């Protein structure tokens, strides 16, 4: 078995890249043939990376496995993944809600809206499993309609082992040592991180003289959110307390802050900052997190202080002024990290999870026991057709009809195989109603010349549907060539029957 890891951007300093690298190392350690793919075939890591175009070349066997690190908005990648004949796992990394961008950037809002739409398509991928880092993420997946039994929770791989030996960044160290109480924010800079709230609170606390607090911001700045960054900078310049310092987002800065700050704070709710919270645990830095967040779940009740936005100011004062509490949090955090998140522990969990997923994928049940719910592409008398197919189908996976792509594949099987094995299916496929349905199946305007067989093929052959969008004459031509080469004869038989049927209908009409 070969394993492919697909990641949108494999650089060393993103949470997703750290996660993918962790998986890569875990699999390599087990002697698995593992390869990494990116959209460009490039990486800053000293490791071999393939272009995503190579996916189809390398993964042609059903027993192979591809782990896709979900990247919002990459429709082209979804087309690649939909064409793959092998098993698939989607690693969910979340997307930001589009509305949070609206005041700051039209482009970012548009991108975020596209991301939310493509997330829907991602979740329709015929994946064997979806991996979430936390139950918060798992809840979001369920909200999107992913069946609970296909979601597994597996914490992120992190960079702690790789960055723990880095020397302190001297500028950062100086900035920390200049203040009595230091708080770090490592969240990516964006509206989701509620940084404005944090700035206000820190400013108020400092001005009120209740505590000499300084906030160090070292999150990654998102290029599309320049407008937001500018607003944030303006806000900082209007603060009177001089209690904020921006740092570059580098591992050295992060390590320095984690080593020397009193705590890390994250005001972000829901899916998000789990990777950086893990690093904080690894470095024994207490975390003050928003309730109902990934961070709160990662750190657990003993190692963090969980709060709501309204209570944040009070909690900061309570925790940061209490040396004993901070020490307790540090100790609990390290213990939690050692037990749950050390790399060997994560690797073992990851491998166990893959084995479990593989075993689940081998389960077959009698086809007749399955309930073929869902929409069946408007096929006339689809329930009857599917039932007839189930009666003759070999055993199927329990999830055989989950999602449109699996149902698509099952109809393809009915057309190719079922029609040759069952007289009832054959009769139904030759029924004038089905032939009329096939003849008039919806295709893009450029493809109106497609006959009934081609229309069926484009709709139900998973590869053809993913490969050809039929948006241009050239693409239609490519599909027609492909049809000639690849479509089973059964499609062509139906096309002939539909053509005959049309003539008969016309003759009757005349």
């Amino acid at each position, binding site marked *: 078995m070969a394993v492919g890891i697909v990641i949108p951007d494999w650089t060393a300093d993103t949470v997703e890249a750290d996660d993918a690298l962790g998986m890569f190392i875990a699999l390599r350690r087990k002697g698995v043939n593992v390869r990494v793919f990116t959209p460009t075939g490039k990486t800053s890591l000293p490791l071999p990376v393939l272009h995503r175009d190579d996916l189809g070349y*390398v993964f*042609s066997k059903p027993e192979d496995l591809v782990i896709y690190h979900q990247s919002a908005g990459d429709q082209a990648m979804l087309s690649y993944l939909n064409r793959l004949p092998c098993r698939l796992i989607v690693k969910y990394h979340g997307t930001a809600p589009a509305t949070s961008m609206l005041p700051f950037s039209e482009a970012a809002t548009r991108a975020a809206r596209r991301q939310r739409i493509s997330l829907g398509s991602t979740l329709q991928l015929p994946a064997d499993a979806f991996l979430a880092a936390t139950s918060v993420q798992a809840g979001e997946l369920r909200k999107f309609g992913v069946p609970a039994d296909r979601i597994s929770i597996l914490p992120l791989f992190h960079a702690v082992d790789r960055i723990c030996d880095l020397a302190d960044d001297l500028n950062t160290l100086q900035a920390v040592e200049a203040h009595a109480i230091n708080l770090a924010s490592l969240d990516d800079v964006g509206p989701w991180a509620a940084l404005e709230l944090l700035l206000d609170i820190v400013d108020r606390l400092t001005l009120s003289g209740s505590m000499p607090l300084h906030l160090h911001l070292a999150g990654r700045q998102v290029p599309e959110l320049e407008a937001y960054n500018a607003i944030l900078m303006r806000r900082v310049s209007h603060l009177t307390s001089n209690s904020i310092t921006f740092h570059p987002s580098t591992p050295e800065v992060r390590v320095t802050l984690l080593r020397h700050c009193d705590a890390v704070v994250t005001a972000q709710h829901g899916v998000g900052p789990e990777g950086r919270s893990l690093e904080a645990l690894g470095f024994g830095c207490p975390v003050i997190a928003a309730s109902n967040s990934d961070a709160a779940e990662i750190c657990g009740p003993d190692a963090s202080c969980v709060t709501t936005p309204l209570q944040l100011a009070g909690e900061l004062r309570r925790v940061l002024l209490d040396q004993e509490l901070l020490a307790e949090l540090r100790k609990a955090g390290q213990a939690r990290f050692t037990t749950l998140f050390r790399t060997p522990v994560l690797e073992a969990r990851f491998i166990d999870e893959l084995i479990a997923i593989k075993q689940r994928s081998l389960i077959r049940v009698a086809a007749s026991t399955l309930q073929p719910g869902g929409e069946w592409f408007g096929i006339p008398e689809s329930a009857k057709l599917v039932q007839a197919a189930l009666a003759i189908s070999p055993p199927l996976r329990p999830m055989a009809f989950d999602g449109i792509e699996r149902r698509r594949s099952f109809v393809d099987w009915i057309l190719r195989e079922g029609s040759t094995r069952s007289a009832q299916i054959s009769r139904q496929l030759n029924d004038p109603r089905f032939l009329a349905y096939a003849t008039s199946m919806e295709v893009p305007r450029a493809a109106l*010349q497609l006959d009934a067989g081609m229309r069926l093929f484009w709709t139900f052959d998973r590869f053809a549907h993913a490969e050809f969008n039929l948006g241009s004459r050239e693409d*239609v031509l490519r599909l027609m*060539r492909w049809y000639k080469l690849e479509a089973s004869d059964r499609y062509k038989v139906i096309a002939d029957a539909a053509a005959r049927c049309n003539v008969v209908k016309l003759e009757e009409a005349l």
Partner: protein
Amino acid sequence: MTRRIFWLGMHKVLKRTELKQLRQLGYEVFNPAYISPIYDQSADRRIDDDQPTTLPAEIFAELLQHDFFYTEVPSRIAELLNAYFDVVIVTINIDWLLALLKAFTGQVIYRIYGQPYSLSDEVINKGRWLDLVGRDNLSIVPFATESVRNEHGWFLDLCPYVVPYQIPDDTFTQSGTWASQPHRQLIAVSIPNIENPYYNTVYNNFANTFPGSSFQIFGPQRAVPPDPRIVGNLERLEFLRRLASASGYMYLYTDWVCYLPPIEMMELGGPVLYRAGSLLSAFYDKASPGQFLDKVTADKKIGLLIAQDRGFINEVLSAQESVRTRYDRKIVIPIFNEVFTKLLGPSAETGRLLRYENAIASVSKAPSTPAPTRWLGVFLHADGLLGFSKGRAHAFEGIPRVVDIIVSTLVEFSDLGVVVTCTGSALPVFHDFFSAAIKQGRVVLRVINLGSHPEGLKAKLERLWLIEDFNSNSEILGVLVPHYYLFPEALLLSCPLFLYLPDYFPHLMPGTVFDTSAEKDAENKRVGVAIAAKCEGILTNSHYTRNYLPDAGFVPAYALEKVIVAPLPLLGAGRQDTLTATEIAEMEDKIAGRRFIFYPTANRPNKQIAFLLKIFAATRLLHPDLVLVLTCDLASVPGVAEYADQVRLRPHIVFFSRIGDDMLAWLYRNASALCLTTTMEGNFPPQIQEALTFDTPVVATRLPMITEILQDREESLLLCNALDIDDFCEKLLFALSRPEEVRERQRVMWRVLHERSSRERFYSQLEVLLSRADQPLKKVA
């Protein structure tokens, strides 16, 4: 005595194979040094000053110091070549050949290995056609019949033999090693010298289409782009080893050449993928498993190679075996030895292809049948009537298509010779168009060099000399003028004259300007009427035309008997089945599986193309997959293009311009219907005859010349009232929905036409026409 050969070549492979082989045959072969400043990644730049020679040392040294590549041969060097060499063999480059032909008077052999462009076109474009066809002792030896598929007929006539060539000997030391190698999951491709614009385009196309990392790009490079897939220069043995360790090889080129790396991969025993439409693909019996059409088919096959799918690999290997053997030295060397021994033997002299004397181009070899004693002249010396397409000569206009049928009918049924006039620039294409009859000695071409100013003084003198030639030739029976105003000089002929006049539209459509102005139309008519008056007989194709010619002023009613009606046989017969698989694929690509209605015609007011567009727009409402195929330019008649834009029809119209009879036949065979909207024809529309021949459903305007023939069988065709959109749409929809029924019905009409337009009948009418030369009618004033 052994003949001494001057071998003009520099290719690394050829120097180690064919040059070596010639020497092994016992010839003394001199090979000049490649000292050209022009970079070529294939050139062997080593100067072989140790080659075996009996040349005097100073001559040897002088020749070795001269740059023969991409340069003209100076007179001193030409003297040496003629003095010291019996034969010159030129390899690869047409410019090298042309330079040598100027300098060397002895036997020349041009050895070619496939070129991405047409060598015939190059020769013609450089004005050197006569230097090849009119020269004694020139042979061209291509390496494969398929490689010269797009060359002109005259070029192929110069190719007496085909001799394959072999891959380098060192490849054979690694034969079959692919099977025993562990394979990296990589596909080998070859793109040398990416700095060169040609290869740069290949590289960019490849990089855009196949961005994946599963490729290794082989080939010598000067400057290497930052692409980790580029391997760059390798020693031969290392290159072969790397090739043998790849999962397979992908051949990217579709130009009409076949580079050697895929063949080397085959010799190593590895599977090769290749593009459809490439020369390499032409070497396979049929579409084999290694062929790919586009990226999606390539991707699938690359995946199978990388996954080491044994079944697929075995199929590919088995299919490519016949290709591999073409280049196998065991096969190549005996053929090479046999043919070159013949070509270089003492009795190997070959005559010229064409005799060209006194502006007459004729076959040089005496044909087996006696030469004609009486000749008919046919004026055709206007440019643009014929052209080459994919190496074949085609008639793109009606007049030469009719002349074609006249000539072939006379050749088939009479012993008359035909002198066809042509312009100097059109001589090569005329030669090929009439080549069968020229070879039989039944047609000669009289060339008239009109130059770039057909109305200039020189051109006028040329025309006068032409007339004088005909007037002074007692063997000339007469001259047929196939167009009423294009050849006014015919009025000066003293020999009998015949006019071909299929129609006269200005009479049928008064008030319409057909030429540049009404004045020009009037002038044209004056010429036509004068020729008609002078001529012995007028050939036309229907009684309909014959009947209105008196009213049109071309012939007095009392002299109507001089108008001979000869219905035209099917035009272009014998030229209709020459499309290659690649050309058919190109046509299919353009049509893309859509149903289409067809009307091949020029855009003239009487053709009613705007009305055709209206019918098409209306029909598309019910058949949105339908397209319209036209061969005309919409802009020729005001309002037509504008209408197409107004109703947004352009994306649904497919244009084919300057199509030959073979493409025309394909379009008829595949059309859903011929929709003939013309409201005025001077003649029976040949499109109907063609459509009936190719079984295309016909929907046409009810024209008198059609009903005249149909008589009581009118229901056999779907005829419509002129410009009646409802009538046309109804019948077109009927033809689209019940094509078989329409075809069945119109077969009746086909039989009638077939009978009426037989070649025998056509000849008998021609005979009647030409017999007037001996019994001239009383001249009318």
